[in-house]
């Protein structure tokens, strides 16, 4: 009697667990596959927008003497890696040529703005830094427009 | 005399020496079936090999192989039940000196070869 009881209970959590796993895979797998190449690309390059905003904030904070120069430079390096990855994703994506062209253009401008910001910070040129900050803000708005417009 | 449930009250319990120093756990129990009478606890066993055998014979072989690099001389430390002074809810106390048993081979080795060599530790 006791044995049957414990056996039933030891099987139930397992059954519940596997049900959860199956349900989860059933929900998530098609969701991942159904994405169009455009949606997929836009999702993959999402960090670009966040990095543009971070660099803009970093530039402003540098101008306000809130962050050290070394931090700004390290941030730029980390952002650079994210931009490189986005460029790579854009190049190999199967999304439509128009979205790819717009994104490719934007990412290369983002890299240029990042490089400009780095030069300004290294030279201590506040005017140049302020200019690049404005450019980054504008790029971020453009990026949001692309993301918001969707690839579909 | 009081009853003692070997699996519940003795196996896996902390072993302390006569001074109260922790010297391991009851990793195994060996019964003596000779003499025709009821089984009698002969020794308590301590050591990684004893533990490994409880998991799986193959694990025991692996641990045996690893023992090539061990500084411990005896794989199984056998403490005769006669040496057991008392079994409390907290520990099994044995009439031995931990520092002089194989249970402390590693402890001694690490103390002499590592701890003592840390600067300022003398």
């Amino acid at each position: 009697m006791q044995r049957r009881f414990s056996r039933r209970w030891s099987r139930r959590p397992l059954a519940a667990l596997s049900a959860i796993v199956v349900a989860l895979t059933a929900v998530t797998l098609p969701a991942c596959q159904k994405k169009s190449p455009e949606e997929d690309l836009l999702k993959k390059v999402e960090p670009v927008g966040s990095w543009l905003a971070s660099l803009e904030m970093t530039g402003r904070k540098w101008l306000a003497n809130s962050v050290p120069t070394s931090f700004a430079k390290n941030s730029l390096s980390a952002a650079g890696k994210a931009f490189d990855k986005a460029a790579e994703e854009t190049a190999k994506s199967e999304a439509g040529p128009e979205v790819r062209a717009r994104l490719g253009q934007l990412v290369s401008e983002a890299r240029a703005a990042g490089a400009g910001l780095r030069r300004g910070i290294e030279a201590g040129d506040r005017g140049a830094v302020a200019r690049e900050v404005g450019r980054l803000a504008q790029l971020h708005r453009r990026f949001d427009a692309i993301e918001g417009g969707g690839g579909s | 005399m009081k009853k003692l449930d070997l699996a519940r009250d003795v196996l896996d319990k902390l072993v302390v020496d006569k001074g109260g120093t922790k010297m391991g756990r009851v990793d195994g129990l060996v019964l003596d079936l000779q003499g025709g009478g009821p089984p009698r606890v002969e020794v308590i066993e301590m050591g990684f090999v004893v533990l490994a055998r409880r998991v799986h014979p193959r694990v025991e072989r692996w641990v045996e192989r690893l023992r090539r690099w061990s500084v411990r001389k005896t794989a199984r430390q056998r403490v005769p039940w006669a040496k057991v002074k008392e079994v409390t809810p907290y520990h099994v106390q044995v009439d031995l000196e931990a520092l002089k048993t194989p249970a402390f081979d590693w402890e001694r080795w690490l103390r002499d070869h590592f701890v003592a060599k840390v600067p300022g530790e003398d």
Partner: protein
Amino acid sequence: MKKWLQLGLGILTAVGGFFDMGAMATSAQAGANFRFQLLWAVAVATLMVVFLVEMSGRFAAVSNKALPDAIREHFGFTFWVVPFLVLSLSTFLVLATEIGGICFALHLVTGLPTPLMALPVAVLTWLFLWRSTFSTIENSTSLLGLITLAFVVAAFRHHPPAHEVLQGFVPSLPGEDPLKYWAIAVSIVGAVLSPYLFYFYSSGAVEDHWDESYVGVNRGIAAIGMGFGSVISLAGIVVAAMALAPRGIQVDDYHQAALMLTDAFPFWGFLLFAVSMGIACLGAALEVALAMAYSLAQTFGWNWGENLDPREDARFSTVYTVVLLLAALPILFGVDPLKLTILAMASEAAVLPFVALPFVLLMNDRKLLKEHANGWISNTVAGIVLLVALVLTAVSIPLALLGGGG
């Protein structure tokens, strides 16, 4: 009254186990992505962790045994060996993460590359453990840990909209990106319910010689200590929601989180962030390294105790030495701290049932705990924790992969 000095143990456990590298990452991500919407996850996790920590303290005070000790004794080695190994692996990942946190904090201040810091940080952390007694660690870490209150001050300085903050305590479904939402929710709970926390706290109670008279004080210490960690995590979400979310900054990298406090404290904000991160992670690294040494020593019945001279417990001291040095390797070889954090948190969530189940059974053992065994309130919460733990185990790893990578 003197017993309340033990609050240090609660705060240390909280600084190390609650508001650590993992909580910093999840708070920043939660606030940056979903503003106040995930505050409830911290609240739920806090409630669960307060109960579990209280239980582990009560257990140690009444039985004079720490958890790994009691689990091996009561369930036997063959039961304990698998959870023990799985847990050690997960705890090791957490230790690597915390070392990464200290390194990153130093990287923020000095500008030098993070991997360069790995070995010096491991050696200095080790030296601190080697030299100090348990109460030194307890008091210094809990005192230094107060610097993380900067997050709370910052949260108030931002004047967040009160009704939105309150709404965040009511669970709600996300407007967009549900996968990310749930991935962050799971990692918040995973980051808070760290299994080693209970081993550490109960071993600490044994180190501090708690007895049955501490049962009442323990309740307060658990609630205040964990409450402290919780308030800081909540503040972290609020600050990220106010400083990062409106700008569209998500946290894909710790460099982005480092800007969090600069709005509230224009001059000191950056340094405060780095110092908070460094201290929280140092506290956590000490705690995790000790937790690993405790559970190993207790499993095999070695002499253990941070109050002993290393000569008296050479094996115990050797374990935390070796573990600290090994844990420095991932950062030394350039693994990204954030990726390591996410992996460690997923693994913590996955191993939770292994810890929770034997723990709850022990808490109901009247022979061991007499009248201090769990009542129905504690058991209800424990039952919920077990359920949550099972779900977490099933979803944590897939969610971390999907929600993190898209």
